């Protein structure tokens, strides 16, 4: 299809059209200058499709932090139909799209599939956007994740100075655009040129971060976990950790959960699926008191092992997208960029920080 152009002032009409079908969320910059996803109610004032990833990872919409998965054993034998309105998430960045590859691998592949995740994922509309800048915590390129979306979206809407360059990604996206064709103009050559310019500029910022912090690249990651299993790095790095689990919660690839049963209004056949965090001590505790990871440093090692060793082995992809959220959200400021740098340095027999 031909690329389209949406004028800035027409964003509201576009979002209203989306809201007829979807429960729409878009990113907005708060006073501290951070992006957060907010639900669309009336206006789109302050909507920022460009910028960088919002604080909330995209997984929230599909792998929900608390979801009822059983409500009556007989009734729930088949996964219940989703009664909620489907979501439309706007301004999704490539690091989040990439994170969904891990979520998809976990919940939609293998002998058992998660019908709740699949249902949630099926009916939504993902509107991705280019990053128009980078913040110091962005290091996606180190993971070979580009800072602009390539696939995995329904519609791509790249923010320009006077509007948005719009492209379809899937049939669902194309259909929506076609139905609302009247809102758009044809994209001009200068719009494409402007986007390419912004892309180049944002890419340079990510590269500058990587250079400034000496962040190693994926090609240097081979075996960093295996050779560092007993490295002192883990204990040094984990010192400031307060075991809050934020790093797990904000990570677009973390997928761990537990099933929790309860009684609700006299109904005992209730089960929730809730996020869990591998940084919690009880995560690997077994009855009788044994624990495969009794010490905090072992749990930090485990988190890295899962991302940089387990997933490459079983799924052929790293479960880190370089989004930097685990660092931004960490009260102890445990910096994944520094941990990676030290692990690589240690592997190469160099002194670390």
């Amino acid at each position: 299809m031909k690329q389209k152009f949406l004028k800035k002032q027409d964003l509201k009409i576009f979002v209203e059209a989306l809201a007829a079908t979807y429960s729409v969320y878009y990113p907005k910059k708060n006073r501290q200058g951070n992006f957060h996803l907010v639900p669309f109610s009336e206006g789109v004032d302050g909507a920022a499709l460009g910028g960088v990833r919002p604080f909330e990872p995209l997984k929230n919409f599909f792998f929900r932090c608390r979801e009822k998965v059983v409500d009556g054993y007989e009734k729930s034998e088949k996964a219940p139909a989703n009664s909620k309105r489907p979501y439309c998430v706007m301004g999704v960045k490539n690091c989040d799209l990439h994170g969904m590859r891990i979520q998809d691998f976990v919940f939609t592949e293998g002998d058992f599939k998660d019908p709740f995740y699949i249902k949630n994922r099926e009916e939504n509309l993902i509107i991705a956007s280019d990053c128009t800048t980078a913040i110091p915590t962005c290091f996606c390129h180190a993971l070979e994740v580009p800072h602009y979306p390539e696939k995995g979206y329904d519609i791509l809407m790249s923010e320009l100075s006077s509007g948005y360059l719009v492209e379809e990604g899937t049939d669902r996206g194309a259909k929506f655009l076609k139905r609302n064709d009247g809102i758009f103009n044809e994209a001009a050559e200068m719009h494409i040129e402007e986007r390419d310019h912004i892309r180049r500029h944002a890419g340079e910022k990510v590269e500058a971060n990587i250079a400034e912090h000496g962040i190693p690249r994926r090609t240097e990651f081979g075996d960093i976990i295996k050779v560092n299993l007993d490295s002192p790095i883990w204990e040094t790095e984990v010192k400031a950790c307060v075991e809050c689990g934020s790093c797990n919660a904000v990570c677009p690839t973390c997928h761990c959960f537990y099933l929790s049963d309860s009684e609700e209004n006299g109904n005992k056949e209730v089960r929730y699926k809730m996020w869990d965090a591998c940084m919690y001590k009880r995560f690997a505790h077994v009855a009788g008191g044994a624990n495969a990871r009794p010490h905090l440093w072992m749990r930090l090692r485990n988190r890295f092992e899962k991302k940089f060793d387990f997933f490459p082995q079983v799924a052929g992809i790293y479960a880190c997208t370089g989004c930097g959220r685990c660092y931004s959200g960490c009260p102890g400021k445990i910096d994944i960029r520094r941990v990676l740098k030290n692990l690589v340095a240690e592997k190469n027999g160099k002194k670390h920080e």
Partner: protein
Amino acid sequence: MNNPYCPVKGKIIDIKEETSNIKTFRLNLDKNISFKTGQFIELTVPGIGEAPFTPSSNPKIEDTMDVTIMKVGRVTEILHGLKPGDEIAVRGPYGMGYPLKEFEGKEILIVGGGVGLAPLRSLILALLNDRKKYKKLVVKYGSRTPKDIVYKDLLREWANNKDMELEITVDAGDETWKGNVGLITTLIKRDMGVDVKNSVAIVCGPPIMMKFSTFKLIDIGYEPRHIYLSMEKNMSCGIGKCGHCRIGPYYACKDGPVFTYDKISGLHGIWE
């Protein structure tokens, strides 16, 4: 699409007290769940929670299922308070089970500790179903004290069964005990009459018991790939999604819970 988190309803139809903190529950489920020996189930106490257990009954029996449960925490405590007729629910079976095909023509050494004899009971019953396929069946069982021995009637029966050899030991005896005293490892010996080179060893029990039994088996000449161990890790989903049971590149729930030692020997945290 089927909901893998939803259990099938059932009832407890019989409870047998094995020791002061171990009971065997006979379950009758609304839909038969047939399992392969070594696979496990998630047993739910409605409104309270679920926990993984390995059925201890003969997999050939399809209309009931036995699970032998030690009282150790929140869910098992409540399970122990249940009565025949009470409702439970079950998901599964999950995991790979014992590869019986690979055991054919071999001398089979089974090493159990404590409540670890539960899954092994199901295995032994399954082996006895087709006893001719296996060359020899040797069972070694260790318990802390004579009072902690499970399946006392069945063990008496097995002691007189010509199709198998059974030896029992306790860590500490009492006035009534006339048998072996010593750790389970004292029963694993070069001269125990097993042709180690044509044998597989299957071990299940508390982590520390599995660790030292494995080392002893290696010591007397077993190859790591012929030693089968049960990795009872923290589990929630049982289906390779929740992330709890990971060891190295495996999820114990879906790639195990039984692993040969060669697959896991280099990984950390396997004995805890």
